[in-house]
């Protein structure tokens, strides 16, 4: 009987560890979120959304950083989405079994997890060094480069989910491939494609590393794409590491805003995606 007891004991022990591991993971999620809410909510006030980032030691808000983030994220999406969607379309529709698609798929998956700071260096070399100064445009392009692999991946995956009989039916009517894709495949995969874009927005709106030396930072409100522009993550980085209480408080508030935005975006994307796959 001893061997049964030993096996049962070992089973209980290791499975217990699995429960502990799950508890560990969930505890950190809850801990981080609670800390954020506790520290961030203290500083939430209308001033955060109506005033500029302050000089050291005085009160202020995050308006220029929030606007800067919105502008650069929007531009990044505009830059990266069309390229990503077209590339994903090629891989799922025209070149599904081609060599090119296989190579692009492999490279794209690597780009998907490549360190984002390297993208910052790349854009610095290509744009900032050439133009001679930091600019919001460079920041937006850097974000766009990060968007591309995300959108390529989801576009391909979602188009592959579209049943082939739909395409065949359209082709039997005499429609050329481009119309089959545009009028049938894209429409059938619409929710999935939107999910991909939302995921890309969630991914880049928290990105700091690629903005550090492309868009830099700007203490004032600016809409000039040719000049440095503030962004929420970079401001958080600068303020959190500063010794000033007011700045640190703003960093926490900014962190709360950004996390709330990113997490709700990814939850919305998930819900949209889930509807698609279950129906």
């Amino acid at each position, binding site marked *: 009987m001893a061997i049964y007891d030993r096996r049962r004991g070992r089973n209980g022990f290791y499975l217990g560890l699995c429960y502990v591991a799950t508890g560990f993971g969930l505890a950190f999620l809850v801990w981080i979120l609670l800390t*954020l809410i506790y520290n961030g909510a203290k500083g939430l006030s209308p001033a955060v959304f109506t005033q500029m980032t302050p000089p050291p030691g005085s009160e202020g808000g995050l308006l220029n950083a929030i606007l800067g983030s919105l502008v650069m994220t929007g531009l990044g999406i505009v830059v990266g989405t069309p*390229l990503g969607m077209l*590339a994903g379309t090629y891989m799922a529709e025209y070149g599904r079994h081609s060599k090119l698609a296989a190579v692009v798929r492999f490279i794209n998956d690597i780009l998907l*997890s490549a*360190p984002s700071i390297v993208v910052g*260096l790349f854009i610095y070399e290509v744009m900032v060094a050439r133009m001679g100064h930091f600019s919001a445009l460079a920041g937006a392009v850097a974000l766009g480069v990060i968007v591309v692999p995300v959108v390529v991946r989801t576009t391909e995956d979602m188009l592959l989910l579209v049943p082939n009989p739909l395409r065949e039916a359209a082709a039997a009517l005499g429609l050329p491939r481009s119309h089959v894709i545009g009028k049938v495949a894209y429409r059938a995969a619409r929710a999935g494609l939107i999910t991909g874009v939302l995921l890309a927005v969630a991914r880049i709106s928290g990105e700091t590393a690629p903005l550090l030396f492309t868009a830099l930072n700007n203490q004032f409100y600016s809409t000039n794409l040719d000049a440095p522009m503030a962004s929420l993550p970079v401001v958080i980085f600068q303020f959190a590491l500063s010794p000033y209480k007011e700045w*640190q408080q703003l960093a926490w508030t900014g962190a709360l805003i950004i996390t709330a935005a990113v997490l709700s975006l990814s939850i919305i994307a998930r819900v949209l995606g889930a509807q698609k796959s279950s129906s």
Partner: protein
Amino acid sequence: MGTKKVADFAIDTGALDSTEALDRRATLRRFKVLDTVFRLLTMTAASAVLVLLGGVIASLVIGSLPAFRAFGLDFLTTQSWNPVTEKFGALAPIYGTVVTSALAMLLAVPVGLGIAIFLTELCPYPLRRPIGIAIELLAGIPSIIYGIWGLFVLAPLIQQYVQPGLIGTFSNVPVLSTLFAGPPYGIGVLTASFILAIMVLPFITSISRDVFDTVPSVLKEAAYGVGCTTWEVVRSVVIPYTRVGVIGGVMLGLGRALGETMAVTFVIGNAHKISASLLAPGTTISATIANEFTEAVGDIYTSSLIALGLILFGITFVILALARYMLMRLEQKAA
């Protein structure tokens, strides 16, 4: 007479030059042109992804040339990092990157696999999705949030409770006393590794869970049928069956850990030296670049930082390529 059908045109040759026939031909030609244009457009976009990678590599290589010309391969093996005398060596950041990532994996792999086992074998069915999503949300939190949390919440706790304990407990144990030596700063290699571990956890979990799900139920049921316990099924059936995929997932997590920037920058301490103690401040490649790039003066300094970027990209590229290759092999096996 009504509208003409396609068949009518085919039979009635007199309709060949009718406006309907010409319209039809024009439309077909337009379709053909449109299709070719769209096809070329998508193909160009797909190739652009390759160009993007080529561009990243080319720009990093060109940018790092001055540094490699000045220091040669010594750049990889020297430890000095002195902006004043313009002497740069990458050893300390490389060491920091490798050590923090390795330590992070040491913690993240067992915990990540544990969660995956929980989600596939133990969790009551209605809870699987919510818990899975919650773990994946950990991956959605921006890395700067981990940084600020690590600096203000985790580091003080580690400094107060964990580090004095480690130093005290191991002060008489030969090897461990050097690993856990020195004053408890709070920030340092160990704290950075811990945060990295939490950050890569969801990647390991979600890939392991996905590959665990590919194990055919028949195999598991057969094992249960001969009287295996759940743990024995996991250990002897599930994990051997999915080994390649699990390793792929782990490498994917490793690739993330190596390149992670902001969270590490906050808590590593940014000291350009290699310390035997894990409690001492250090630096990583990405943290060095993030901290110093905008303040770098002079070509050699900038170029050295870009060279660091090239090294980082090289390491992560190899790791990620291996990870993808393994996952691809598993997919082929499943298909």
